């Protein structure tokens, strides 16, 4: 991205702040653009962080300074100029609108199609709502219920203060500071994120969702999530939201770490609908995410993702199957339209005996977009009788889009069983006509066909997410027959 555009963006943001009268505070609470050691010290001290964390951040920064931005992914974009980003600013107050009439009508139309209730529409688009007290009390009662069974669910910042021993024990154990360029950057400058701890033997009774945190935190540019499921516990965690998310931050470099102890199970579901840019590929979010989990003995991690947003996506939720008899799963639907680019997939690292992994990836490309699956299945010498089953399907909606598959398989133990299936197909005019001949309109027909194609993945989503995700698929592909 060009420096001037960044500056424009920055001045736009600053102006907005001025507009709402935060002059003096903002001045004192925003660090000058650019990244150096003193910036990191300032971030840490503003957050009153303990010394060990500052040291940890500085190590990450030192590692990052020696790294190059990776370019092996099948995406092309202008690299963001990190020296023109301000890495710490006071939480920006959301613009409060008087009524839904002031909200972008396109946004409202989409939310209506998604079946989001009027009250929630207001909440999501930042309209002042009367029932704030209600939603606060709901969130509070959730917290009480969770507290009674010992589940900790809070922001990472809060966890650093309230549960430093847990954070210190687990932070960076799955995604080390120097793991990769963007993970190192995140480690150095992360501002906040979520923390979740499920005690031994506890089955978390509700889906832990970023939904009811939406007013409290929003989503940061460098978010960091840490989930720890202790022995024999279970948790289902939902990230994101089907509603379109407009965000001034162009670069998002998040890190998610999951620790699944012996016999624990973690289900992590994502619906990602960041701003993809306009039809000509202008604007849009760069989504460079590192997500990884480690499975101890007989434990399980399932990643399920529905990715429809962002201009450029670079994301490989992975499992390190360390313990014997552990299981890793990856279910993904990635939709790209217009000029979007996605390079996404998973890594399944088999270390333990009888470890099993399943990969189901469904790519849907439309417009002039590029959609790539990149996956690694690695069977280490000690992984006796490991098994993997992979399906990578691609569906093309137009003649101008691209679908690519880059499967890597490394087997170092002869007892392993690996199966890999891949198909590429174009949505058939015949299929659409067949539906139309039965009375189903073209748009609905495309929705039906695409949902059928992605069914194996959509079925893995928690109920309330699945319905919205189905609608989201249809909306993302509107007007895309070619």
């Amino acid at each position, binding site marked *: 991205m060009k420096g001037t555009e960044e500056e424009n963006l920055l001045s736009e943001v600053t102006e907005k702040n001025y507009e709402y009268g935060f002059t003096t505070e903002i001045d004192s609470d925003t660090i000058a653009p650019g990244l150096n050691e003193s910036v990191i010290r300032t971030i840490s001290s503003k957050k009153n962080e303990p010394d060990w964390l500052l040291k940890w951040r500085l190590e990450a920064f030192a590692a990052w300074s020696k790294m190059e931005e990776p370019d092996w992914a099948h995406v092309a974009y202008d690299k963001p100029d990190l020296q023109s980003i301000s890495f710490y600013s006071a939480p920006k107050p959301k613009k409060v609108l008087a009524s839904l009439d002031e909200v972008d009508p396109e946004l409202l139309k989409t939310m209506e199609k998604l079946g989001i209730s009027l009250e929630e529409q207001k909440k999501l688009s930042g309209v002042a709502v009367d029932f704030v007290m209600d939603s606060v009390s709901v969130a509070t009662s959730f917290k009480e219920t969770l507290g009674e069974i010992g589940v900790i669910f809070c922001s990472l910042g809060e966890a650093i203060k309230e549960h430093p021993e847990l954070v210190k024990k687990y932070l960076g154990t799955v995604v080390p500071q120097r793991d990769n360029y963007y993970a190192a950057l995140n480690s150095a400058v992360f501002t906040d994120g979520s923390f979740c701890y499920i005690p031994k033997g506890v089955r978390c009774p509700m889906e832990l969702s970023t939904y009811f945190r939406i007013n409290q935190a929003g989503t940061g540019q460098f978010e960091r999530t840490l989930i720890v499921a202790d022995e024999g516990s279970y948790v289902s965690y939902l990230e994101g939201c089907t509603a379109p998310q407009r965000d001034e931050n162009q670069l998002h470099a998040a890190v998610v770490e999951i620790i699944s102890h012996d016999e624990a199970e973690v289900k992590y579901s994502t619906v990602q609908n960041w701003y993809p840019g306009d039809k000509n590929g202008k604007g849009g979010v760069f989504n460079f995410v590192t997500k990884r989990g480690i499975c101890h003995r007989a434990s399980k991690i399932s990643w399920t993702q529905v990715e429809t947003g962002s201009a450029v996506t670079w994301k490989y939720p992975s499992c390190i199957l360390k313990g014997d008899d552990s299981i890793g799963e990856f279910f993904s639907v990635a939709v790209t339209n217009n000029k979007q680019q996605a390079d996404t997939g998973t890594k399944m690292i088999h270390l333990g005996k009888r470890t099993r992994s399943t990969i189901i990836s469904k790519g849907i490309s439309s417009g002039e977009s590029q959609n790539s699956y990149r996956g690694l299945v690695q069977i280490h010498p000690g992984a006796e009788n490991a098994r993997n089953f992979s399906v990578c399907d691609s569906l093309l909606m137009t003649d101008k889009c691209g679908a690519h598959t880059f499967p890597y398989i490394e087997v170092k133990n002869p007892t392993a069983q690996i199966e890999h299936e891949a198909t590429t197909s174009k949505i058939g005019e015949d*299929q659409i*006509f*067949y*539906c*139309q*001949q039965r*009375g189903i*309109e*073209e748009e609905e027909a495309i929705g039906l066909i695409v949902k059928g194609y*992605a069914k194996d993945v959509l079925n893995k989503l928690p109920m309330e997410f699945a319905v919205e995700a189905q609608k989201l698929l249809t909306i993302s592909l509107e007007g895309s027959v070619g």
Partner: protein
Amino acid sequence: MLKIKNLHAKVGDNEILKGLNLDVKPGEIHAIMGPNGSGKSTLASVLAGREAYEVTDGVVDLDGTDLLELEASDRAREGVFLAFQYPIEIPGVSNLNFMKAAVNAKRDHNGQPPIKAKDFLAKVKECSSLVELDGRLRDRSVNEGFSGGEKKRNEIFQMAILEPKLCILDETDSGLDIDALRVVSKGVNAMRSPDRAFIVITHYQRLLDHIIPDFVHVLSNGKIVKSGGKELALELEAKGYDWIKEEQNA
């Protein structure tokens, strides 16, 4: 019910229908026969509204509605049903969900609320027994992994569910063994009614042993060149199509 006047249609630069006339009244069964390439399947596609076919002249009127003005899906909602010669597979979409979407699209068109689950299931049960479609096939994805005969039975099952007023059967007998032919014909015959009409497109007379037509038309070179009763089909079976071509050329 259906009035086709001077219908001309082409695919690309290739004119296939060259002034076709046909008049179908409620309750009637019209068989359209003819040699390969005479335009039989084109007629079916044009009536159903397939985009690749361009109508260059003529009128198609269904009970006062100009069909040619309507999108394919609207024609279907107006009661036009095409049983495909090669039914299409839609992976991951269950046959029942597909039918439910179709039924509700039609109900919505008619200003009715979506069908109740109980009523829909009762209808499904009734219609699947009509063509001996077992539960396994009903619950599977649309036509996926069906044998040729199962696909054709599924077409008639869908036809029974949707209760169209004009049924067009495009070579429904192709690829059917004698038992499947009997089952499919039984389904069609059960659906005969005073206010429903059928256009049965076929290459062979054997289907017409099971589905007895009121009229038989011979399509040749984009026009109906000869019409008659059911005995015309027998004559064609015995003599082939060449004598008609000769009659035309004489």
